[in-house]
């Protein structure tokens, strides 16, 4: 089989923040009754993590579960293990009304790190990105300039950002422009 390629193919930019293609990552949309024991168990089996609270992300080693909406999660796992993870979910949820679908290739996934990461995002997203308001573990779906985007912050201070695959170049160029040297706002970090 051919080698899978991400839309940004490893792109990286270092400015006020470091913006880099996070590489191939498994992503699974799971829709179902998030309050049910079945879904909770299925997620545990699939990625070994709990279901996050509203607008939260729980992260594990190379895995995460993101709260997308009251009936939707996004499961993050290794790219190569997506089929297996979906199979696990399907097995665990047999007989339930649910939907588990591979969306790993539907998105571009970026890491945003460094002192200027908050400011870079705050130039593009109508979200309070101050240290007090946006803390590790939070997950936010919003708008980044003219496209939908979602991001969460890990304990190390790196933002994990996803948006649709087709706008990968746009998203990268946006972030790059926002992180150009000289554009320090000097308000966060």
């Amino acid at each position, binding site marked *: 089989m*051919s080698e*899978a390629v991400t839309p940004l193919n490893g792109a990286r930019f270092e400015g006020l923040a470091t913006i880099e293609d996070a590489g191939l990552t498994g992503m699974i949309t799971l829709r*179902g009754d998030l309050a049910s024991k079945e879904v909770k168990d299925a997620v545990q089996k699939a990625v070994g993590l709990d279901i996050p609270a509203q607008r939260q992300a729980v992260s594990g080693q190379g895995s995460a579960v993101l709260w997308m909406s009251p009936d939707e999660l996004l499961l993050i796992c290794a790219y190569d293990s997506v089929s297996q993870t979906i199979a696990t979910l399907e097995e665990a949820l047999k007989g339930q009304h649910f*939907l588990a*679908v591979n969306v790993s290739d*539907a998105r571009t996934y970026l890491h945003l790190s460094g002192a200027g990461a908050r400011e870079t995002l705050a130039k593009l997203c109508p979200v309070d990105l101050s240290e007090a308001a946006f803390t590790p573990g939070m997950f936010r779906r919003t708008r980044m300039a003219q496209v939908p985007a979602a991001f969460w912050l890990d304990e190390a201070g790196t933002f994990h950002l996803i948006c649709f695959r087709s706008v990968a170049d746009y998203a990268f160029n946006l972030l790059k422009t926002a992180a150009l040297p000289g554009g320090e706002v000097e*308000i966060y970090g």
Partner: protein
Amino acid sequence: MSTRLAKTGRLVDHNRAIAFTFNGKRLKGHPGDTLASALLANDQMLVGRSFKYHRPRGIVASGAEEPNALVGLGEGTRFEPNQRVTTTELFDGLTCISQNHWPSLDFDIGAVNTAFARFLPAGFYYKTFIHPRPFWKHVYEPFIRQSAGLGKASNPGDPDRYEHFYYFCDVLVVGGGVAGLQAAVTAAEAGSKVMLIEQTAHWGGRAPVDGGEVDGQPVADWVDATIAKLQGMPNVTLRNRCMGAGVYDHGYALGYERVADHTPGSDAPRHRLWRIRAGQIVTATGAIERPLSFAGNDIPGVMLASAVRDYAVDFGVSIGDRTVVVTNNDDAYRTAITLKQLGLEIPVILDARQSGGGALADEARALGIRVENGKGIAKVKGGKRVEGVAICAQAGEGAVLEEIKCDAVAMSGGWSPVVHLWSHCGGKLIWDEAHAHFRPDPANPPKGANGEGFVIPAGAANGAGDLASVVRDAHEAGQAAAKAMGHKPKGKAPEASTSEEAPMQPVWLMPQGAGIKLRMKSWLDYQNDVKVSDVQLAAREGYESVEHAKRYTTLGMATDQGKLSNINGLAILSDALSQPIPQTGTTTFRPPYTPISLSSIAGEAKGEIFQPIRKTPMHGWHEANGADFEPVGQWRRPYCFPKGEEGRHEAVNREIKQTRASLALLDASTLGKIIVKGPDAGRFMDMLYTNMMSTLKPGRCRYGLMCNENGFLMDDGVVARLDEDTFLVHTTTGGADVIHGHMEDWLQCEWWDWKVYTANVTEQYAQIGVAGPNSRKVIEKLTGDDISADALTFMGWTEITVAGIPARVFRISFAGELSFELSVPASHGRALWDALLEAGEEYGVTPYGTEGMHVMRAEKGFIMIGDETDGTVIPQDLNMDWAISKKKEDYLGKRAQEREHMADPNRWKLVGLETLEGEVLPDGAYATAPGTNANGQRNTQGRVTSTYHSPTLGRGIAMGLVHHGPDRMGEVLEFPKVDGGIVKAKIVDPIFYDKDGEKQNV
């Protein structure tokens, strides 16, 4: 003459000189200067020309309210017209030119208008230039446009960048004067997250110029100490060079930060637009001094008294050696005192008040200054600069009592709070009789999302007078703001200086009984040349509403938006209408406070990131292989792939021929793909589509039509049933998000008890159309799976591995040939594309674009959403009754289609059109019918919906909607061309190619 004083000027660095040019003249200033102070230091009194009469104009103010001194700043791609010199920081190498004159600033032909001013009163153009009719467009209007307009346009290619910044705080304080500082401290100490913004480069506002003490220290020291304190607070953000530009609904405010205007060419963005969401907004925006209306008050050298003081104290610039001060209040005495203490001459202070001033007047007298009470200026003498004033009694009609030589006039008509930001979002004003100004009405603030007020005025912006009351008021504002945010205010306002001043007295016209000749020379709006007589004329003619008077005279419509002129103008209007000022009211304050660059509004969205460009996984290949793209929504799709010297048309023809003859590939990744899953999925699909979808078998595909609830066709596409519970819906390129939203809308809001989940997986897959007689062969080269005619029948789908990649293959055809669509994970899309090209080489494979696809579908008589449909077409119009289930009780749009007009047999219906001569029918042409309608329009009986040259048939083919079309096969219709001439076309079956579908069924 205006000049630089030695060793004064708290903001400038006398030890360093920087060079700049004005109209090519090389001049010198100091760091800390504004362009205004630097020009004045060089005795450049004349800086521009007015809008209508091209009168000489000098600097009249020292801040954002300046109406006159606008220049073209910079050069080349960084040129910017209409830049206010009073708010432009001087930098080394600055170049600027004056505006609105020809051939030169000193000698302007347009000034001839002044001589005719009497014949050009307010609104003269409504009464003239009426005949002869064509003259307006060709003679009068060009002349008027050329003489108006101020500066020249900027040039394309702006090299600077701009950005936005989203910021959230509890309390936004606008204005970094004493009031703003105090309000910020108070709110911050209560625990609120505070942002304080100031439009200039300096903190403290006017207070350091006027002096006084706060908290036992000189106010300038208090300002420094307070800034230091605020800088040390983690919950406070300070920004100078950042103007509060506008207040919008629900606590939204714009901060316009001029990051690099004073350092052009640096790597910083030029402007940053702060998009601030604040819980409470404190407007500590100060007050603006009003001019007095006397004859000749527009001559360069007549300046606001506060501005004269500012230039002396802040920049060490004196406007004149002999300055006459004219006032109706005590504050202007400060100017006289300041100048006198600097060793300059004050020949007289003319105080329009019969009773004169208070303690400050005594102080002035003590310094030996002559003070005349009850006096005013009858007329200023001079042309391009002040030469003297004629003094009169304020109570009289202007009889000259004495003439005094002077080279500057400092005037003060009282102060108006800056209420713009308060008013932008609906805050109401009340008239303060004692100070003759409008100030915020505390009972009627702008209201936020919770229905409570969210703007609090502070200090002079709230009508507070001396330092002590400003500080006290600001402290209260800070407390109120913090409290509204749920924080507990603490502390008391610091003590500050009080000053006992005699009451001001409103003076709207000087002298009070000025005759018409003086009133015609008494300016209200300096830039737009509106005089007292103009407003009075408007009132006489019935333009009584303040908005009528404004629009009729153009008062307050200049670039300063009436900061100096509005109150004076509406006082004159009220007087003319014999009604109190509050009854006249004000015009509406609109954002921005002062003009902000269009580019700052556009922000980062320019060039490559103007808008998102959506790209498929094969986009890079298309680009590298010469694709001629067309925008389709935010996607760019290859229209065709021209080779060598080939034009578009030849390329399209070649692609089609190659498809029909052998093999071609289409990047179909943009098609929408939506998963619909659940026990109620079939039922839901039946509601979405006009067809019956629930009966579709797993492994099979069905073409379907989707209508909106109003009955019109909105999308079409192929549905594949993946399993008993799951459908895969294909939509048009533009339909992916729309249809997904449409599905979720019905599921969430109408049928929320149905068990259906959807997921938009459009971008998960790269989709490649493989079309042509050799399509099966090429795929078979790349797969071991069976896709033979028996194994994968027409309208079937299956899962295979192709080029080592897991894929769904759909045997569907839009081109009318044997064809397949391969759907693979997007990250393998490019690999599959490459593999197919390589494997197809032996068949002469070619990629084809959207136009080839369009032509081929038209040859087959397939409709295209957006061509055959335009939002007014229902499936019945397209003879697609076969796709409308008769068995279903309901589907979206069904009831709508039962309405009288939709069920009308006279609706135009789809047919094929074949030109008699084989030419291509013009796109969008209409078929005429005899006669005209009641409005004299030519009757029509049909129109072309798609029209192409068919390379397959070697002739033009078209589809169209025609009145009773399907019943009129063989009839010939006439389609007029726009350039004359008629194309005749015969009504035919819309399927032009392979009517029996044999080609796709092999």
